[in-house]
């Protein structure tokens, strides 16, 4: 049995995820779209906090809300007039989009219902992963430790920096 506060918390998070992600793709002003994306990412971070992954929620806020959305807003200001709205959708394109979304929904919902035994799993007890455990798992080479992906990510980020400079510089 969950406590009432936990259920209310869940309802707020789930409804804001659904509402803001629908608004992100349906609003016609691009800057509003980026703002709604920010709210969706905050709701996701709240979901991580609710599932006891505090470190992941903090990373979500720092990287997504603090980094990526700012990048989006800057590039929107650089490439479009913020007041402009996109042109009205052609109904053919809209139908195609709705069809693809519904197809995705149907396939995933079928998979969910097909595995209905798994779908009713209750929230097990768990201790929050401590910062110390996360750090040793990130920096070790043993089983369930992630030094190699960590280094690969650092090389990827370096490649990304170089690529960004090369692509965006003035000729």
């Amino acid at each position: 049995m969950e406590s009432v506060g936990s259920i209310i918390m869940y309802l707020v998070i789930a409804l804001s995820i659904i509402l803001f992600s629908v608004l992100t793709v349906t609003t016609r002003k691009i800057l509003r779209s980026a703002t709604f994306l920010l709210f969706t990412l905050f709701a996701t971070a709240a979901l991580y906090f609710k599932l006891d992954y505090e470190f992941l929620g903090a990373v979500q806020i720092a990287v997504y809300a603090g980094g990526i959305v700012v990048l989006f807003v800057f590039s929107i200001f650089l490439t479009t007039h913020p007041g402009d709205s996109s042109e009205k959708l052609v109904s053919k394109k809209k139908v195609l989009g709705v069809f693809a979304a519904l197809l995705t929904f149907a396939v995933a919902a079928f998979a969910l219902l097909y595995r209905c035994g798994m779908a009713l799993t209750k929230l097990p007890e768990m201790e929050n992963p401590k910062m110390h455990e996360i750090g040793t798992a990130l920096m070790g080479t043993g089983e369930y430790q992630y030094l190699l992906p960590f280094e690969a990510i650092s090389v990827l980020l370096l490649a990304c920096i170089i690529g960004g400079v090369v692509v965006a510089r003035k000729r």
Partner: protein
Amino acid sequence: MDITILYYLVPSLIMFCCGVYGFITRRNMIAMLISLELMLNAVDINFVVFNRFLYPENMEGMFFTLFAIAIAAAETALAIAIIINVFRSAKNISVSDLSKMKH
């Protein structure tokens, strides 16, 4: 009422479907990138939820999400560099107007 795993998977599924819809209908490259970001985020939620509900003693899903967030950040930065470069040469970032490299 118990909040089972299904209650977390459904919002993430709806988020993913919104991403698919936006990716197909939007013509602005940045708006398409935003839709892509929604889809990535929905997948991240799935990793974390499966980790938390099915294997609470391990941390694999959490680490996969951490690395996925880092890769998403790198990918977005590079994509925006390309978009700005395209804007500089074509003065437009609507995909329907960018047909120069098709031939």
